[in-house]
């Protein structure tokens, strides 16, 4: 269940529906990313999110395929906003149901790392003192690389 949303969505409602859809799962881990109201460059007034329609969905589907091959999980839920977002609005919701909690935790963590570094989204922060395109930090690339070593053992 992958969705690129051009309008605000309700994370709690979406999560509730997802939890119902995977009734047999004993564990559900979710991640919610929201627009922060402050940043190094001062107060954030808005976030603009661009994507590459069609291709973005394909990159997301690839990440999901990798995660489901690697962990014993239900089909994950990913909703990712595009367009102009106000502070406090939800950017991304990831939820993963599984029989066992470690699978759910690791898969959600993995999905977020790859959404940050592989999925076709571009983010511009509109601040009181100007605007800036956001690029992954070195730590984001390092986070994603954590999964390389263990790839063959799982």
């Amino acid at each position, binding site marked *: 269940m992958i969705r690129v949303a051009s309008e605000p969505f309700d994370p709690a409602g979406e999560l509730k529906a997802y939890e119902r859809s995977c009734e047999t799962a004993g564990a559900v881990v979710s991640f919610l990313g929201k627009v922060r109201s402050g940043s190094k460059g001062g107060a954030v007034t808005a976030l603009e999110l661009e994507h590459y329609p*069609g291709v973005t969905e394909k990159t997301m589907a690839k990440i999901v395929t990798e995660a489901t091959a690697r962990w014993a999980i239900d089909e994950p839920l990913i909703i990712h906003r595009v367009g102009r977002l106000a502070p406090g609005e939800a950017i991304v919701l990831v939820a993963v149901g599984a029989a066992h909690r470690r699978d759910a935790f690791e898969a959600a963590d993995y999905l977020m790392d790859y959404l*940050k570094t592989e999925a*076709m989204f571009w983010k511009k922060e509109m601040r009181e003192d100007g605007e800036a395109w956001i690029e992954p930090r070195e730590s984001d690339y390092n986070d994603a690389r954590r999964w390389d070593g263990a790839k063959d053992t799982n």
Partner: protein
Amino acid sequence: MARLLFFGRLGDIAGGRTRDMTVTGDVATLSILIEAIAAEDEALGAALKDKSVRYAVNEALVAGDTAVTDCDEIAFLPPVSGG
């Protein structure tokens, strides 16, 4: 006409997210196309050549130089920042 797509900061530098460009026989590869753009707009050319930028032709990522035609959709992709 080939369709060029500029994402993220490249769109700002190009002054627009999309651009149509005639790709003639002289412009047979991606790197020649980028040189043609650079000849007209030095800042955009430099941005497109930055090693962090990836290229997609007809929605498929391409590694390095590749053939392009007048029917192609050519996307310039700076580092992504989803999530």
